[in-house]
């Protein structure tokens, strides 16, 4: 059966989706692509280059000869980082379930999944703080050697991205609590989700290249 919706500009009943035509849909664009979503993808494409610079710097500097202080082999705790990486990976699942919930108008489940995503992200950040504290205790600081500088800056910038994502998710949760997120606003949730998944894919690369590859 064809779904029917009320046109936002004329008030007439039209088949769902018919209002997306240019000239009728208030969100229609000349390109036929949602501007906010396009902007987010452009940002993510540029952020690939941003993170690429720091990953390349790390690879270049981590084993420079003549460095004093702890080396990656001395400080990395692979089992611990594996657990926090797994938590961040699973937060992508809860994020996409939150989007699916808001798209079908299930706001209660949306709030549950979006808060679960934020909590997973907060757990990841907690793990990163613990890891940094342990490294400091073992004598590795941001100014100890080139490995320390490049490691802390790379993972710190990623952690900052995660923190921004958590704030964004909590804000969406708060808006939903005030009934200010509706099915029609799902694109806002999707854009936040794109950012969150990007943070996850960047960590997929960092985890493999920085922690797992043979030193």
């Amino acid at each position: 059966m064809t779904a029917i919706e009320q046109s936002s500009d004329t008030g007439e009943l039209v088949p769902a989706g018919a209002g997306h035509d240019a000239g009728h849909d208030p969100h229609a664009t000349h390109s036929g692509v949602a501007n906010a979503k396009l902007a987010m993808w452009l940002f993510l494409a540029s952020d690939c280059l941003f993170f690429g610079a720091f990953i390349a710097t790390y690879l270049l500097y981590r084993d420079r000869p003549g460095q004093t202080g702890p080396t990656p082999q001395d400080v990395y705790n692979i089992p611990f980082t594996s657990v926090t990486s797994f938590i961040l990976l699973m937060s992508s699942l809860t994020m996409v379930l939150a989007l699916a919930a808001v798209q079908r108008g299930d706001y209660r489940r949306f709030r549950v999944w979006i808060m679960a995503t934020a909590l997973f992200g907060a757990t990841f950040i907690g793990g990163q703080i613990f890891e940094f504290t342990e490294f400091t205790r073992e004598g590795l600081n941001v100014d100890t050697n080139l490995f320390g500088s490049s490691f802390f800056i790379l993972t710190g910038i990623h952690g900052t991205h995660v923190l921004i994502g958590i704030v964004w998710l909590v804000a969406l949760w708060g808006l939903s609590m005030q009934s200010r997120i509706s099915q029609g606003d799902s694109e806002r949730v999707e854009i936040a989700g794109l950012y969150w998944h990007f943070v996850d894919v960047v960590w997929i690369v960092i985890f493999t290249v920085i922690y797992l590859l043979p030193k």
Partner: protein
Amino acid sequence: MSDIETQAIEKSGHEPDLPQGDLAYRMAHPAPNLLPGEVRAHPDPWQYVVVAIVLAVITAVEIAVSYMEGDIPDGLIVVLLLAMMVVKFFLVASWFMHLRTDQPIFKRLFIVGAIAAPLLYLIVLATLHGVLAD
């Protein structure tokens, strides 16, 4: 189909003038429940769960492979880990970020960034590694 639905379809004036499989047709005539910018409907929640399970299994294998250092050649470990990393990257991008179902322009934009970054920095690494070693 009820009368009100028939009336609404007549008012919309959506007469197919392109084959239904054509991208331009699907863009101009989105199926019900599609958001602007989507070409196909998003996967259902169970498909997301299956993708997450696959991601979890690949991560477990990655960690297991990293512990094989010394048992198998380092070169093989590097190849295996990078291959699994790429698979995970594309699983998240295509399923969770909906590059499979959204308009191709998003995919093109992201692929440019995702390919340009490693390409650019491989060149930088190859150049500077030699310079810094001197």
